[in-house]
């Protein structure tokens, strides 16, 4: 665990440095091309470093907020879903971390992610579909997996990498589009001012930069993907199993998540590696894929089910037995300090049925969307949307009048 934390902190700093170098180089090229002064390159570098500082401070101060907003996650109170809060509290106690903020994403596809700069400012987001589909043990497994990501400081690295990737993608878009409009507008103008060669040169530089960015963006993307690769997911699974002492919960949750066929609407390529299961997985796509950010779920489930105990040692033994990788998951020193953890029994949680679950998902989404729930004495439930205009509703069944506002 400590090794993992150190590696993540080191990687975060490395990534920031790499980004500074890349931006500085871009700034130098731009400055040379546009500023007609011998020190133009230096101006460019200075500008790029300012941009880098802004980016870095954004990813440190509010990177998590950007992701939560991009995923359309809504902060919720304990009232909306008490069970979710209980489970998160349990897991924060088990892991010794402060209670993270809890968000719900209004989406029927089951998935979850954690983000934040440090354990003190961490957030856990789950979709309404996840809450509707999983029983308590399974939800606990998923939350434990996310807490393990927080514990291992995976969240810091992913957040920084995500903001940087987003910035590069944005810049390449700006350059490409800028080039497009320039050539559209400039096409007619150049005929009259063909004696100024500076414009043509700048355009050439723009072209080069645009191409460089276009090449760079996917490389950064795959860097992010590799960095957040399978190893992190396996280790978070191991950490989650240790926290709950019940790997079966996470295993069956993963199974349920993998059976889902609805894509998560608010996920994109940048945020995909953050989720517990790849949200962009298409049906029929081969699960084991080189470019995949997540290990195949079937393999994760097999490892979790093959655990003899709940410790890291048990997980890495199961890993060597069931995964297709030959190398060991953790170092020997990490296993030396590992203490045996016994498995616990699952709690008795009944299956509520498909109808009830679909209804649950709907109700969670409505609560998140600030619907008012009115329970009439005649057992009719009325779910009133927030933009309902009248001040009162009359129950169509027993004619009782209920106040809405």
């Amino acid at each position, binding site marked *: 665990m400590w090794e993992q934390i150190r590696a993540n902190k080191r990687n975060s700093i490395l990534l920031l440095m790499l980004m500074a170098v890349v931006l500085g180089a871009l700034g130098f090229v731009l400055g040379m091309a546009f500023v007609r002064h011998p020190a133009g390159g230096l101006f460019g570098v200075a500008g790029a470093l300012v941009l880098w500082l802004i980016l870095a401070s954004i990813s440190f101060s509010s990177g998590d907020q950007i992701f939560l907003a991009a995923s359309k996650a809504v902060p919720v109170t304990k009232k909306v879903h008490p069970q979710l809060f209980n489970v998160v509290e349990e897991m924060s106690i088990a892991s010794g971390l402060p209670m993270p903020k809890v968000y719900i994403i209004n989406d029927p596809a089951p998935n979850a992610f954690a983000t934040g700069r440090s354990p003190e400012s961490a957030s856990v987001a789950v979709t309404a579909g996840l809450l509707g589909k999983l029983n308590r043990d399974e939800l606990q497994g998923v939350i434990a997996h996310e807490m393990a990501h927080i514990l291992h400081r995976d969240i810091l690295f992913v957040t920084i990498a995500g903001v940087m990737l987003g910035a590069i993608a944005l810049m390449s878009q700006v350059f490409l589009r800028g080039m497009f409009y320039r050539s559209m507008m400039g096409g007619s103008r150049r005929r009259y001012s063909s004696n100024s060669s500076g414009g043509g040169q700048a355009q050439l530089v723009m072209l080069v930069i645009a191409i460089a960015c276009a090449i760079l963006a996917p490389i950064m993307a795959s860097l992010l993907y590799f960095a957040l690769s399978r190893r992190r997911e396996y280790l978070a699974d191991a950490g989650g199993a240790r926290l709950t002492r019940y790997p079966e919960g996470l295993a069956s949750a993963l199974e349920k998540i993998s059976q889902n*066929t609805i894509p998560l609407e608010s996920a994109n390529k940048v945020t995909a590696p953050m989720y517990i299961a790849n949200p962009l997985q298409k049906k029929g796509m081969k699960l084991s894929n080189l470019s995949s950010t997540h290990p195949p779920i079937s393999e994760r489930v097999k490892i979790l089910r093959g655990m003899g105990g709940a410790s890291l040692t048990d997980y890495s033994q199961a890993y060597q037995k069931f995964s297709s990788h030959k190398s060991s998951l953790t170092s020997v020193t990490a296993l030396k300090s590992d203490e045996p953890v016994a498995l616990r029994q699952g709690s008795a949680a009944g299956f509520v049925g498909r109808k009830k679950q679909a209804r649950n998902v709907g109700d969670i989404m409505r609560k998140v969307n600030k*619907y008012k729930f009115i329970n009439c004495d005649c057992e*009719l439930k*009325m779910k009133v949307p*927030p933009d309902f205009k*009248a001040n009162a*509703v009359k129950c169509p*069944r027993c004619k009782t009048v209920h106040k809405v506002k």
Partner: protein
Amino acid sequence: MHRMSRTAFKRSLTIRKWPITMIGEMNCPVCKNSAMVVLELDEVEVDYCFDCQGIWLDAGELELLLDGSHVANALLKSFRPCTDCSEEKRPCPICLKKMQKISAGSESEPIIIDSCKKAHGLWFDAGELQNVISKGSLDAGNKINKLLSDIFKEQ
């Protein structure tokens, strides 16, 4: 007006696998600006407009209610595309595209309802759903039947 082919019509009636439509709030297709309230009784849910008493049955809801494709098919079989309906076309509360008119119930006294061409669901004006049921298009033990006769028994 151009007539839809029979297969295209049937396809437009097929029920979607998952009720992904229940996320957002919906406005009544008749009153346009009034938000519909969700009514739930015995795990059955319908969207209800307090202004015009119309009822929206979500496709996912329909599937959950009918619970089995043969019952759903029996219901859908009693629906025929309505070619000479003069009733005003209404927008689907989910996709806002114009819905098609469908006649349900007996040949002699058809009840005209609205169905979304993208299979988002069915719209019943005030009293229409009760009429469809009382005309025997739905089997007696059906959950929708029970719900509606229970909720709206005095109307």
